[in-house]
């Protein structure tokens, strides 16, 4: 490995950043495609209920349905107690 490569390997190249971003996005969008049509609406409503009681934003709540629609998983990151 040349000295140039050595320096380069410490810093991520823009292509590897692109790859990582794409992998996350594509996985997310594929998942969305296979989800039932009612899911976005249901997510919104669950979010609204939780937000009524706890101070959380959309990013703090993850709602996933597994592939054969048998397990609904709800993850809520609660705000730190101040």
């Amino acid at each position, binding site marked *: 490995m040349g000295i140039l490569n050595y320096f380069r390997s410490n810093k991520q190249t823009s292509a590897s950043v692109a790859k990582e971003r794409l992998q996350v996005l594509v996985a997310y969008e594929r998942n969305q*495609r296979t989800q039932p049509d009612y899911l976005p609406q249901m997510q919104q409503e669950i979010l609204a209920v939780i937000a009524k009681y706890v101070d959380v934003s959309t990013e703090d709540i993850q709602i996933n349905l597994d592939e054969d629609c048998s397990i609904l998983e709800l993850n809520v990151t609660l705000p730190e107690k101040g």
Partner: protein
Amino acid sequence: MAEIIVVTSGKGGVGKTTSSAAIGTGLALKGFKTVLIDFDVGLRNLDLIMGCERRVVYDFVNVINKEATLNQALIRDKRTENLYILPASQTRDKDALSVEGVETVLNELAESFDYIVCDSPAGIEKGAQLALYFADTAIVVTNPEVSSVRDSDRILGVLQSKSRKAEQGGTVKEHLLLTRYNPARVDAGEMLSVEDVKEILAIPLLGVVPESEAVLKASNQGVPVILDADSDAGKAYDDAIARFLGEDREHRFLNVERKGFLSRVFGRKG
């Protein structure tokens, strides 16, 4: 029975029309009776890339509306035997193509052609969906760039859910054609590599076409770039056709060409 191939991508400007022209010509050169259909209603360009724009009298929409017969609308290519072009309409009416109308035309073409190559418009909505609806095979044209890769994945989603094959419980055969590839920028870490794109899209690789000056030159002259047999892009498309027909050919133009001393001194660009 004809095989229906759609050349699609989601994103615009990635090389669908360039690739359609090369693929159609390549198949005809191998002796298959081939028709190229321009599905880009309102933005027809395939005739220009094929160099037959002055011979367009009737178009796809005229045939669907029974204002002309297929034989009147089909343009026989002057350079390549076995090759015909069905131009798109310049109408601004986006709904000029109907599923039933397209099906009727494809059925008639299928009686006498081996391959029907459909050049899709950009997008993932109606026009693009109609171009891919009847496809047996999809060639997904992708550039090594984030928005193109993302859109390719979305069009794969459409192929897997909204094509006739998918509706009947089957699958459209998928091929990845990576175009405008620049090995020097890949080496510099500035561009997604073939391996990166293959890993993300997870479909078989048909070919890699390098970013090439030959493409602009060919389009200036209205000659499909595959006929520029000495050019890198021409060779890459020729390889892709051979692979499509089952031949096992190694991928070329993936690495930076090592220039000889003289060409380095005189700086000739290949």
